[in-house]
């Protein structure tokens, strides 16, 4: 009956260890730490969902952790509450400023306005804003020298994933859904869809994308929240029942439900988002069914921007914004893991990637208007 088998004995041992840890506490005391930290404080404010969302907040947070380990910077972070308002974002950023942070990374478009206002009020503090650029109140673009926008043209990678999915699908149906249909969500779905269409055009096939029918993204499939993983599973099972065999969930932790659904039906796969799911413990149970992942290399970008801060080479402003795309390696699809790809597909993907980088293929997205 077990779905996942692990070494029970090990678990038992560990359990006992936890217990004895609490009881005994008679280990030797460690020596005082000796490392000399860098006098630079890098901080981060999450969006709702928090740093353990197995998705984009977590990926960004990984960058902060790396910076702490590799650069020796001090860090601090604020996790916004599950139901966050602007008030929470503002006070999160404010508290980071009072903590004396040199650089504050704000994660998500929800924090754009709060970031802008804080940056204006604190010109000496640097900011990096992920997934959004700055704009004025009238939505005209705004450039501030101490804010570096970090954005991702995820559609490019999603395009490749869509092509791969279309090629891999045995049923001729693939599927996608969002948590809520924000642009940062639908950009994945849209790119994925374009990739499938490209495959159809190239091979004269008719692979369809369930859950993203029509061009009006507001009518695509969504679970309505980023919490209820069971809903993600049910929805995915619905896709599978309609004949789809590959699903792209763009819904943060809800995607776990999709992964679990692949365990119940042979020959079904899930496409990860934000980071390579294959390596994440959260997704370990079904890692064999992860076709690929559409990666947003946020950890690297965060690490880079912190590094620039430490090196005093930080450049802000719209003109210096970072747009992660295939060309600069900011977005990518994960390397092949356990799933067997159709023959020759890797070469095709490589060629497509080259064409996208060279501009021969244009994947439409809000970043290329």
């Amino acid at each position, binding site marked *: 009956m077990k779905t996942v088998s692990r070494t029970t004995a090990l678990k038992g041992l560990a359990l006992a260890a936890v217990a004895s*840890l*609490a009881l*005994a*506490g*008679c*280990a*030797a*005391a*460690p020596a005082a730490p000796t490392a000399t930290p860098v006098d630079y404080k890098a*901080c981060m404010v999450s969006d*709702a969902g928090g740093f353990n969302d197995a998705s984009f907040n977590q990926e960004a947070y990984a960058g902060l952790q790396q910076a702490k380990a590799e650069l020796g910077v001090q860090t*601090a*972070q*604020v*996790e916004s*509450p*599950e*139901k*966050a*308002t*602007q*008030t*929470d974002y*503002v*006070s*999160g950023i*404010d*508290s*980071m400023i*009072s*903590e004396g942070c040199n650089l504050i990374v704000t994660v998500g*478009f*929800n924090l*754009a*306005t709060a970031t802008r206002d804080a940056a204006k*009020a604190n010109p000496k503090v640097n900011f990096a804003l992920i997934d*959004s650029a700055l*704009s004025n*109140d*009238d*939505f*005209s673009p705004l450039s501030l020298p101490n804010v570096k926008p970090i954005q991702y043209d995820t559609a490019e990678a999603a395009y490749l994933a869509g092509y791969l999915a279309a090629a891999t699908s045995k049923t001729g149906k693939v599927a996608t859904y969002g948590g*809520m*249909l*924000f*642009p*940062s969500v639908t950009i994945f779905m849209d790119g994925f869809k374009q990739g499938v269409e490209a495959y159809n055009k190239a091979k004269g096939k008719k692979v369809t994308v369930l859950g993203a029918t029509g061009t009006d993204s*507001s009518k695509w499939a969504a679970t*309505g929240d980023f919490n209820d993983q069971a809903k993600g599973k049910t929805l995915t099972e619905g896709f599978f029942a309609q004949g789809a065999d590959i699903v792209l969930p763009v819904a943060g932790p809800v995607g776990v439900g999709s992964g679990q659904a692949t365990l119940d039906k042979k020959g079904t796969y899930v496409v990860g988002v934000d980071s390579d799911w294959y390596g994440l413990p959260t997704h370990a149970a079904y890692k064999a069914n992860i076709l690929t992942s559409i990666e947003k290399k946020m950890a690297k970008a965060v690490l880079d921007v912190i590094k620039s801060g430490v090196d005093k080479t930080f450049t802000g402003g719209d003109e210096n914004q970072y747009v992660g795309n295939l060309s600069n390696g900011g977005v990518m699809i994960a390397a092949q893991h356990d799933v067997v790809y159709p023959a020759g597909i890797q070469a095709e993907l490589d060629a497509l990637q080259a064409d996208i980088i060279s501009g021969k293929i244009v994947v439409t997205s*809000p970043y290329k208007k």
Partner: protein
Amino acid sequence: MKRVMKEFTGGNAMVSVLAVLASFIVGGILIAISSTEVQTTITYIGARPADFFNALWNSVFGAYDAMFRGAIFNYKAHDGVQMIKPITETLAYATPITMAGLGLAVAFRSGLFNIGGTGQIIFGAMFAGWVGIYVDLPFYIHFPLAVLAGIIGGGLFGALVGFLKAATGANEVIVTIMFNYIAVLLLSYLLKTPILQAPGSVNPVSPPVRDSAKYWFFMGDQFRIHGGLIAMLLAVIFTWWLLNRSTLGFRFRALGHNPNAAKVAGINIGLTYVLVMGISGALSGLAGTSQVLGTEKFLTLGVAASFGFDAITVALLGRSNPWGVLVAGLLFGGLRAGAVTMQANQNVPIDIVLVVQSLIVLFIAAPPLVRAIFRVKESKKAVAA
């Protein structure tokens, strides 16, 4: 409800203080558990116990010190503005929670359990936001109009519940729960259509509210408190007046305590349901205006946050008494503001606040439990037969 009200009013201040204390102690235990320092030092407590106790003290004291600095007064700050900023943050958080709490208090006192704070805040914010964004008028008309729109928006959404209850007998608990979901989804939809979405924006946000419709930021832009604070105080006074001095409130309370007697005395129950829920919703709608025309300045999906549910606990903690609600709102606002600093400074998860909040309400509701914990004897009270 009735009985608890009595319990509450009968309970003395001592119990309330002890209840808060007990909750903070439990919070402290959780803080200590979550501290990595404490976790590490306990492993060698035998070898160097001082480390452990040091870590214990540092984690708990550090956390609550940070909370104090985040919620009341930051004595470590370098300039005056930063020093007093925390208390203004507390007030900024307290404003919508208190307003919505007042709304729920009106309903509770009238015997209706309004769980629909979230939906009513959203409706208030949508109405006020729309007027604030798209109507162009001089401020002396625009601002009151926008606030009024918010009050009406929340009020209508609330009154609809009262109407359904009066007309069909539908249970208001279910209806308000369902209406919360519906309001969130409606807002989510409208923020993707030109009705509310900012032109040129790809994200679900509205254009900013015009300056002529904004609350007055009377302490300047570096603080986030605004005229909503005054509106909140007015709302407290209004609610107090409504419930204690007005004839309408008298009928509300009569309905809340004994609907049968109210009916026999000629009070129109159905109409009163509509009015109660309308006023209750209007106060939540006012909270929505404070959010959209003040603190947030534009509409987003997060406009209601968890204020609708916080308001329930605030109303309960405040014993549905307007001044009590104010105190409870300030307490919760402080906890929320302090939690951010606590997290930023001490790495304590923000969820501690939820635990402390709920424990406070539980303890205050059960004075015998608090007395048992602290082994306080019951104050001499004449025991009626």
